[in-house]
């Protein structure tokens, strides 16, 4: 097995509130191999973005990495100084945020935003950086790139802006892209284009991708593997085909049943009863146990067995596979 680009080990992200210390991410581990796209799915507040922010070192005030390790290409990065971490961002880890309308500085030409990023990370002259900015725009499919570098963000449509954002994330050729809900704010027709673009660029360059989303359709379309998060913990992780067609964790199963595209053929869109517990009131055992229809006393009392990063695992005492065969 090749060395993973990103490797997260037992990551814990804490929120310090006045009353207590809560765990927004609790003991999460996963790897991303070169060229691999890992989909990270879960409801809002499940901690999926938090893990991404921890990797790029941009957790802000009440949040902090409390435990665990983050390795990038064999180098531990969670304990780097702020300055070293800053140099890593953009250079080794590119980031694409959710809303392209607000990700670009409205008062600065996109060419200048590209050039400043390129010159920050690569030793190039202004001229060379400008040339590179144009080719970066061409690569993401902006027509008449040489002219458009002088445009301001508001002169682009939403989809085009997300292309610019992707160009910005990729312009220093990072080995890892963290895409945090990259298509959520876009029209459905544009979503597919952006996903295809991201997929193509990463395949061409062998860039690893952490694709954070709540859209099961996007994951099915794009990811090689998928990690399902629930209340800060990993519920299930495995190859995308296995997890989507044959989920082992009852939560994943419920999630699939409540996804329209996946639920075609079912008589009715199923829903998972209740809602995700607040971090301050996590149940003692399995966090999903209050909503799980097969929970037993054991589930209520003891947290499920730890996930070890491997091919496919579900953090459940009675994972569905074993149940189904029985």
């Amino acid at each position, binding site marked *: 097995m090749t060395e993973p680009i990103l490797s997260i080990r037992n990551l814990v992200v804490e929120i310090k509130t006045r009353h207590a210390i809560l765990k927004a991410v609790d003991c999460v581990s996963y790897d991303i191999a070169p060229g691999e796209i890992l989909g990270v799915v879960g409801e809002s507040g499940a901690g999926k973005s938090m893990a991404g922010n921890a990797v*790029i070192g*941009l957790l802000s005030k009440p949040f902090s990495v409390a435990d665990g390790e983050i390795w990038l290409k064999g180098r531990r990065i969670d304990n780097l100084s702020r300055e070293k971490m*800053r*140099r*890593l*961002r*953009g*250079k080794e880890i590119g*980031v694409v*945020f959710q*809303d392209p309308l*607000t*990700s*670009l*500085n*409205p*008062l*600065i*030409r996109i060419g200048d935003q590209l050039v*400043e*990023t390129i010159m*920050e*990370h690569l030793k190039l002259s202004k001229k060379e950086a400008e040339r590179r900015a144009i080719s970066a725009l061409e690569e993401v499919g902006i027509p008449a790139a040489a002219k458009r570098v002088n*445009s*301001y963000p*508001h*002169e*682009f*449509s939403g989809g085009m802006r997300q292309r610019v*954002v992707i160009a*910005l*994330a990729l312009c*220093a050729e990072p080995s890892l892209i963290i895409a945090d809900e990259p298509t959520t704010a876009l029209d459905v027709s544009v979503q597919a284009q952006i996903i295809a673009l991201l997929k193509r660029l990463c395949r061409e360059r062998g860039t690893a991708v952490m694709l954070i989303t709540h859209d099961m359709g996007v994951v099915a379309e794009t990811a090689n593997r998928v990690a399902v998060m629930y209340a800060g913990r990993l519920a299930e992780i495995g190859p995308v085909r296995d997890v989507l067609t044959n989920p082992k964790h009852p939560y994943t199963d419920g999630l699939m049943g409540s996804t329209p595209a996946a639920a075609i053929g079912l008589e009715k869109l199923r829903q998972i009863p209740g809602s995700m517990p607040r971090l301050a009131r996590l149940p003692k055992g399995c966090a999903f146990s209050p909503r799980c229809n097969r929970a037993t006393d054991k589930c209520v009392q003891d947290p499920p067995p730890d996930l070890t990063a491997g091919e496919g695992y579900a953090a459940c005492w009675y994972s569905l596979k074993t149940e189904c065969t029985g």
Partner: protein
Amino acid sequence: MLAYIIRRVFQSVIVLLVVGLVAFAMFRFVGDPIENMLGQERTQEDVERLRSKLGLDQPFVFQYWKFLKAAVQGDFGVSYRQGRPVAEILIERAPSTLELAAVSGTLAMLFGLGLGVYTAIKRNGWVSNLIMTTSLIGVSLPTFLIGILLIYVFSVELGWLPSYGRGETVTVGSWSTGFLTSSGLKALILPSITLGLYQMTLIMRLVRSEMMEVLRTDYVRFARARGLRESAVNFKHALVNTMVPVTTVIGLQLGSIIAFAIITETVFQWPGVGLLFINAVQFVDIPVMAAYLMLISVLFVGINLVVDLLYFIIDPRLRANGVGAH
């Protein structure tokens, strides 16, 4: 853009016409000037003669037109008290007010911006908290009290700085300046602090809150995620966006510095336009009051116009004029 400028200029002219109407109305409603000009032993004939000589028997609109025509040519009539043309008196007094306003405006802007940016970036430092607390004094203490306090400390107790007047002045052309003598410069210190302190704290608090807002936006987060230096994030990305709303307020504050100079000039017996106005009010010297009113409104409207045009330079979204803008 041209259409916009024309529209703004047109609006400005309308505002000035309305102010002119108010100024003109003062002549008619603050007593009958004929009564004031003729003594007790007047005949009805005298009254009629003077009335027609001054054109006061003509229709209101016609008189207003004449007033405007004269005002545009810089003729505001003759001061009742000094018996000299008002324009001449104003030109004589203007340099001292303008110098005072320029110095305190520059101080307010430099310190307001600097401290505002500093307290926004170092949000929770004790220096920031100290500055913020102290700034409450500047916002809440009335100007005259600050002036009197400064006079008490620096003139009466310490004896370092003069308590009133402009010091020695040097006349350059028709402009009498206090910048070229040491006593003139010394005399400027206390009045300009008094006049600028309120504006400074106002600008500072505004810059701080706007900048903190901007620092929370996605594009600042994205700029960080691209690995840009803190200095580039703060001073390039955040500051430019902070300046959009701040420019308007700074512009208007510069106008009100000249208008507020009335109080400061009274406290320090500063021989400027404000003091002239206060004296004119005491003696019901209506031509001087009317001219002052017109002057201040021209100033405000002019500054407003400049600020609106500055918007175009700062914010490209306004320049778009519908091309590609949504």
